[in-house]
């Protein structure tokens, strides 16, 4: 029999529906692969029973001739930022260690309703703050990829690093991610997989541990554009419990996939040619243009003049929102409590938060508190919100001249774990190409393009108009078909 763990979402769903194999066989194969992959540290907890129970339900439904869901029989990894009923949900933090929600996030519920099952809760950067998966309380995640001829552990990217590592290692066919400033796209690029952040509001934020509420957006991570389209269709949809949820129909993205780009214009933003970008990345960008041209698109130059200011604006807006969102962790209602002898309530808060948050989280809370404090609010926060408006306006103008934008996802390939920890700023710069689309709330995707001289994957990014996930997916598909990316990490775990 074929090794079921090599299959993606579509092949599993279709194979289960046709009866080529059972959902239970799929779940058992992936549960076994997960159990053997502890060295990646991709999961914080594993939930093999959840995957089996969901699979049995699908097999029973098929046996009795009931219609099967969009994700029927597909076991997935769930980023540990989504609240899951009865399963510990930590955001990779100590402060939420042991927190066991009594409710289910909307996105995870929709996936279970569509017939998916859960292999476990995936590791991530603590509270989704990080770009290398080195800020988790539960340890670093290792990428399955290594430089040719080296044993050095490499970063899977972040914050959805458990997701990217698991999908690239084929211990999960797909996983959920969340993207606040690149946290789906950058890890996808680092590990040679696909990931799409939809338009802000497409996926409900209800039950997702909040980082920066005006930016946070969930999305799928999988090994093909088709698989992303299927899974996004199961995750998206209006939710009255999220006040920023889009009250719009969810198109059938999978059915409308079409890589014929004749009549489409692809914009190349000239400001994305930045110093410090690897030559191999610039070369893959050129290659990407040629692929899209081959698919029938016309390539046009566009300008996004405020690109260089997007990242500093993000590092005011996101920490400001985080400092407010993370005020809820106080040792009273859930999670950790540190109550030194004889202290009062205020000292309990301070001790709990000191013990429960990691360094990067503290750093961002302090920055956020500072930029929102009296006397600095206008100079920092209001100014950043105005720059955000300009970044969004740049895109609006560019989309008057093109249908989709092509850019690199990251300025470099993955780097060794531990090699970027000297200065927080160096790490932040990794998201320089990803953050502008986040600030503007636009749908954006990373698809694998090629591997570099070290044997590490490189991704290309597509950014679309608001609500035009289809345009992004279609251009992604055109690249996928031409890139023929079949490289796999060699199994060492």
């Amino acid at each position, binding site marked *: 029999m074929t090794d079921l763990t090599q299959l993606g979402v579509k092949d599993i769903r279709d194979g289960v529906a046709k009866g080529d194999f059972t959902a239970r066989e799929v779940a058992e194969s992936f549960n076994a692969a997960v159990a053997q992959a502890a060295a990646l540290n991709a999961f914080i907890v594993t939930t093999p029973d959840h995957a089996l129970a969901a699979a049995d339900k699908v097999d029973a439904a098929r046996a009795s001739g009931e219609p099967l869901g969009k994700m029927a029989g597909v076991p997935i990894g769930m980023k540990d930022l989504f609240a899951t009923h009865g399963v510990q949900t930590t955001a990779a933090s100590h402060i939420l260690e042991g927190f066991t929600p009594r*409710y289910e996030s909307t996105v995870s519920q929709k996936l279970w309703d569509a017939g998916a099952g859960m292999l476990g809760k995936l590791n991530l950067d603590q509270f989704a703050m990080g770009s290398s998966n080195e800020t988790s309380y539960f340890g670093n995640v290792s990428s399955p990829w290594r430089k040719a001829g080296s044993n050095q552990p490499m970063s899977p990217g972040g914050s959805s690093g458990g997701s990217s590592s698991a999908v690239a290692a084929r211990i999960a066919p797909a996983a959920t991610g969340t993207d606040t400033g690149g946290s789906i796209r950058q890890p996808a690029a680092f590990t040679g997989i696909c990931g799409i952040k939809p338009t*802000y509001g497409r996926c409900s934020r209800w039950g997702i541990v909040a980082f920066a509420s005006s930016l946070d957006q969930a999305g799928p991570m999988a090994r093909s554009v088709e698989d992303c389209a299927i899974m996004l269709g199961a995750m998206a949809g209006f939710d*009255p419990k999220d006040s920023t949820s889009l009250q719009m129909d969810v198109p059938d993205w999978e059915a409308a996939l079409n890589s014929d780009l004749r009549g489409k214009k692809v914009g190349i933003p000239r400001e994305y040619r930045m110093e410090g970008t690897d030559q191999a990345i610039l070369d893959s960008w050129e290659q990407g243009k040629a692929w899209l041209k081959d698919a029938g698109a016309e390539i046009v130059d566009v300008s996004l003049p405020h690109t260089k200011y997007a990242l*500093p604006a993000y590092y005011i807006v996101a920490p400001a929102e985080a400092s407010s969102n993370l005020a809820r962790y106080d040792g*009273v209602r859930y999670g950790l409590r540190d109550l030194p002898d004889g202290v009062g309530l205020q000292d309990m808060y*301070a001790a709990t938060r000191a013990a429960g948050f990691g360094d990067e989280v*503290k750093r961002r809370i*302090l*920055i956020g508190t500072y930029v929102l404090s009296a006397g600095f609010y206008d100079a920092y926060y209001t100014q950043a919100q105005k720059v*955000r408006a300009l970044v969004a306006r740049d895109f609006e103008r560019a989309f008057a001249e093109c249908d989709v934008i092509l850019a690199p996802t990251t300025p470099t390939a993955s780097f060794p774990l531990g090699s970027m920890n000297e200065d927080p700023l160096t790490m932040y710069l990794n998201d320089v190409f990803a953050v502008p689309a986040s600030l503007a709330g636009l749908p954006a995707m990373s698809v694998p393009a090629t591997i570099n001289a070290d044997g590490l994957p490189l991704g290309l990014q597509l950014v679309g108009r608001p609500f035009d996930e289809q345009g992004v997916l279609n251009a992604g598909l055109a690249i996928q078909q031409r890139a023929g990316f079949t490289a796999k990490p060699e199994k060492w775990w």
Partner: protein
Amino acid sequence: MSVDKATVAKIASLARIRMDDAALERMVPELNGILQWVEQLGEVDVTGIEPMAAVIPNTLRLRDDVIDADPLTGGGRQGDVLANAPAAEHGFFGVPKVIE
């Protein structure tokens, strides 16, 4: 603008994060590095630009004015609400004494 140790101590106290001297010392250059870097935003001409809070045009909805319109977020779930509390007593969250 840059911050000194006293300012960082003030911010940490506002954010309710206990930090000892060594932690404060370590944080000062890190915060200053980030603050100096974000200062480039001052170069941007923002004349006439409204600060953006919501990126995708949307209107805030009102929920139906009925009790427990959504049972998940409605009332009557005291047990669920208290289930993860580090100290729950008599149906309440327990905290250290706040009034002498």
